[in-house]
């Protein structure tokens, strides 16, 4: 039986899975990320929080290779991934979702998952024409795994629908399940709970805990502090492009700097934020 962890890319053992050392990124005269330094502990769920404009999404873009880092260093396990090409970073096991769901609209829900495994024998012209059995076997394994994941995420009945036909919440689920199908060792989730109903927030929270149970490390940007408190082991606070503090949510609530920069606003805004 192939387990989920069998497919997780090796990124070194022990120690943090990701080290981010003084990374910077400027857009024109604006320093969006200004020396952010943090570590993401292995096999934990870590939240990246901070006020709007703190540079959270830019950090995710820099870590995943979607943008070039101006200075600083990023290490995934034992590998230096600073400014490595995006697809090479993904092949090392770092997957991401986007703030606004980006489904592959012309593909069916099932195809969105089937395309996700990083390296497939069926993507080689030689194998297509000369090794059909290998293709068939690989495709069957991927199909079974994709159907398992779709069932877990409640998308099984929608498998033959084009992804562009899904609702906003379903697209969120599809994007997360597609990342899971790619068997990441580190999964970056950019606001997975944004714009979804409370029941779905519960479900997504459950799926994230499932990932952790199966050996995936998660780094998620999240504004919903209830969720952060309930499922995250560790929190990184970003403000003005810098790491303001790290620790558990409980520790951060006692940190004056953090309360002033971020938590204070939310506490004052009332519950549910």
């Amino acid at each position, binding site marked *: *039986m192939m387990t*989920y962890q069998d497919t997780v890319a090796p990124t070194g053992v022990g120690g943090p899975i990701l080290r981010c050392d003084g990374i910077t990124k400027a857009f024109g005269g604006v320093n969006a990320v200004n020396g952010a330094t943090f570590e993401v502990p292995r096999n934990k769920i870590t939240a990246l929080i901070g006020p709007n404009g703190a540079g959270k999404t830019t950090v995710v873009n820099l870590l*995943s290779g*979607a943008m070039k880092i101006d200075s600083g260093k990023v290490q995934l396990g034992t590998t230096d991934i600073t400014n490595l*090409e*995006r*697809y090479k970073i*993904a*092949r090392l096991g770092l*997957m991401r979702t*986007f703030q606004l769901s*980006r489904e*592959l*609209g*012309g*593909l*069916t829900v*099932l*195809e969105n998952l*089937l*395309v*996700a495994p*990083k*390296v*497939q*024998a*069926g*993507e*080689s*012209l030689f194998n*297509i*024409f000369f090794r059909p059995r290998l*293709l068939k076997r690989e495709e*069957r394994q991927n199909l*079974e*795994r994709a*159907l*398992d*994941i779709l*069932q*877990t995420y*409640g998308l*099984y*009945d929608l498998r*033959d629908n084009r992804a562009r036909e899904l609702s906003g919440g379903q697209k969120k689920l599809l994007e997360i399940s*597609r990342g899971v199908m*790619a068997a990441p060792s580190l999964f970056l989730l950019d606001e997975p709970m944004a714009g979804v109903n409370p*029941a*779905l927030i*519960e*479900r997504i*929270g*459950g*799926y994230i*805990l*499932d990932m952790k*149970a*199966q050996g995936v490390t998660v780094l998620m940007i999240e504004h919903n502090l209830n969720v952060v408190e*309930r*499922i995250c082991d560790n929190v990184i606070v970003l403000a003005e492009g810098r790491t303001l503090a790290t620790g558990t949510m409980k520790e951060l609530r006692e940190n004056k700097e953090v309360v002033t920069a971020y938590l204070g606003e939310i506490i004052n805004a009332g519950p549910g934020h």
Partner: protein
Amino acid sequence: MAQFWFYVFTLVFFLFDYFILAMGLNIQYGETGILNFAYIGFVAIGAYVTGAVSLPNSVGTAQQYIFGFNMPFPFSLLAGGVASMLLAVVVAAITLRRLRTDYLAMVLISLSLVLYDVINNYVRLFNGADGLYNVPQPMAGVLHLTSNAFVVFFACVTGVISLIMWAGMSRITRSPLGRTFRAIRDDPDVASALGKGVFRYQLTSMLIGSFYAGIGGGLLIQFGGSFNPTAWLPGETFVVFAVIIVGGVGNNVGLLMGALLVETLLIHLPAFLPDIPGHPGLIEYIDAMVIGVMLMVMLWFRPQGIIPEKIRRFALPVGELLNRDGHSVEAPVEVASTVTSATSIGETHEGNQG
């Protein structure tokens, strides 16, 4: 009567040849999203190289051209396909790494114009504006074919080649490679974030499409015996685009339908009609207008084409329907109960394998 069959099989030839050309453009544009406005340049290179390798050495002839190997069919045709692929490597290296969508299209159309001018003016390459002519008709000597019989023969050969190429293309588009092409078409950033080296796949798609373009071009010159710059004005690219847009982007059967409607019925059938008295060449202009209007109507009212891209459904593993259907997970999963849902993945795997 012989004349009638000559016309019919000429139309059959163009149907199958444009089917091949449409498949080549479709894998690039319809499957991978590369807006290749230089496509006709790849067709031309295929035609010229096929012609130049089929012809004898140019010394002592009225034409000037490179190669002149007296290469027999089908090797001459394959040489055309390979030459077109080599051009694709150069074009991809210039364009695909840095450019996307409309900018890519603009650079490609510019490259097509540059290629056109070079071939038109550098006479020693492929005989300049006169183009290549007297290209030997494949197998005509061996089989002692009259020119009418050659048309029937070569239309049938082209039909067989197009069917083989259709089978090859279907295999590619149905494979995981085809799926990755479509993922890149839908969102190259997402494909890249999933670990797909977008440039590598786009290059693969360009190579496959260019091979089809080269073969289609090679067949054109071997059928007609000549090829010159008037046959591949840059605007001709849009005829192939019209074929795939009218027929159905992303659907091989649709492409055959597009080739039948646009290339065979609208372009080549009217060429056999007598001129309108007092207006020589008017039919050709009306033709171009009809194609333009047809393209606009299709894009406005049925952008997916006559036979749209099919939804790809997968045959489920044995027992799959019994195991799962009617058991879709719709109930909210409580955060506290996640260990149960995590273990269910492994259980279902075992169930399937049994």
